[in-house]
């Protein structure tokens, strides 16, 4: 059975990690606006942020170097890179912070 969720702690960590992921994506996209305008449910590819396969490699490298998270396996990459929130999940799961 999972331990009871400390909602305040989880929400603080979620907001913090979302900020980290937004900054990473903003740097890859060369985004000139405020990273806070990147919506958490925006898709990374196709409709949404419009990343391409080269950008995906940069995201993987950025996750590993900047955030210390390594994504391995086709499924993990395919599911973990579908939206900004999916990336946040990946990072928080790796840190043991996901409920």
């Amino acid at each position, binding site marked *: 059975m999972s331990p009871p969720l400390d909602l305040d702690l989880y929400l603080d960590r979620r907001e913090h990690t979302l900020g980290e992921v937004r900054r990473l994506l903003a740097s890859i996209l060369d985004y000139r606006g405020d990273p806070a*305008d990147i919506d958490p449910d925006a898709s990374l590819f196709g409709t949404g942020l419009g990343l391409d396969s080269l950008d995906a490699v940069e995201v993987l490298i950025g996750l590993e170097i900047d955030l210390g998270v390594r994504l391995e396996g086709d499924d993990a990459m395919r599911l973990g890179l579908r939206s900004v929130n999916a990336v946040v999940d990946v990072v928080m799961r790796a840190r043991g912070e996901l409920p």
Partner: protein
Amino acid sequence: MSPPTPDLEKQVHGLRASAGLSRADHVTMLHVEGASAFDLLEYASTRRLYLRESQVRHALLLDDHGGVFADVYIGSGDDGFYVLAEGPGEAALTAWLETARDRQLPGASARIRGLSAERVCLGIDGPYAWEVVSGLLGPAVLGMPYLTLLRREEVLCLRAGKTGEYGYSLLVPRAEVDALLLRLDEVTRTLGIPLVPVELEALDACALENGHFAMRTLRASPLAHPLTPIELQLQWRVAYDKDFIGAEALRRRRAEGPTVRATSFTAGAPVPEGATLHVDDQNVGEVLAARFSPTLQAWVGSALLKRRFAHPHVPLSVSSDAGPVPVLTRTTPLVDNLSLHVDPHKHTFATREGAR
């Protein structure tokens, strides 16, 4: 809130497994041409429209208060621009664009023409939609990038989709619809692909399953009026550094600091639209839309939540006639679409076992 029906389940499962055919009467089709057509649409839409011929932009049209008026695809054709919109009907959208033209570009040459008298819009969505449409219109369909237009004889084909699967909208001359449907029947029989008739309710359920925005899910909310792209998580369709109708109001909302955000959720029991969501005794938002998801076998929806709580994995509850219903916010998309596993260069419906 729509109760689950066996027919809805059949439609969604069919679309998710092979392909679904819909008559997209909810889509308004306009043609805009003339020397000022670009200037008009650039001023009207939230995104920049520097498009090469056959490219399409997914954008929004806003009202003066920044509220979402229409969800639009704007495509550049060899004879002007095509606008496929959800939200306003043909007369309302034409009048809206004419008002914008006369206000911003007086004397400009931009002719706006509704296409509903001439054409019917058919939607084909699903992991094998590409195979059906290429069987119908030829192999050039296989080379269509996402968000492009292709003209084959008199049929205009847009590759887009709001279900998370491969999606095509076909703008077919009315006089040719019956013949095209017969050809479609022939093609799907030959390929052995079940083409399931789907209705708008099934398309909206698929959109919610993928966390995609649908105009039908908009409802007036006391938490934010109007609902703008900021609350609806549609800022990727907004170029804040350009002028467009509603831009000033939107920038003002952004500067004030928005207080709520649309967030996907699932629930194990029916959730009434408009109902209040709680964390313990605290009111944290309200349900915008909810439908039964045949894919997830749960109720799926979108809620407008206070930003503090507008994150996935947050347990909430909603009151219903049958008592409190537990609700869990979710990361989008909520489904692992088969289309992500289907490569048109490797798989066909006949060899689909290799796809996942």
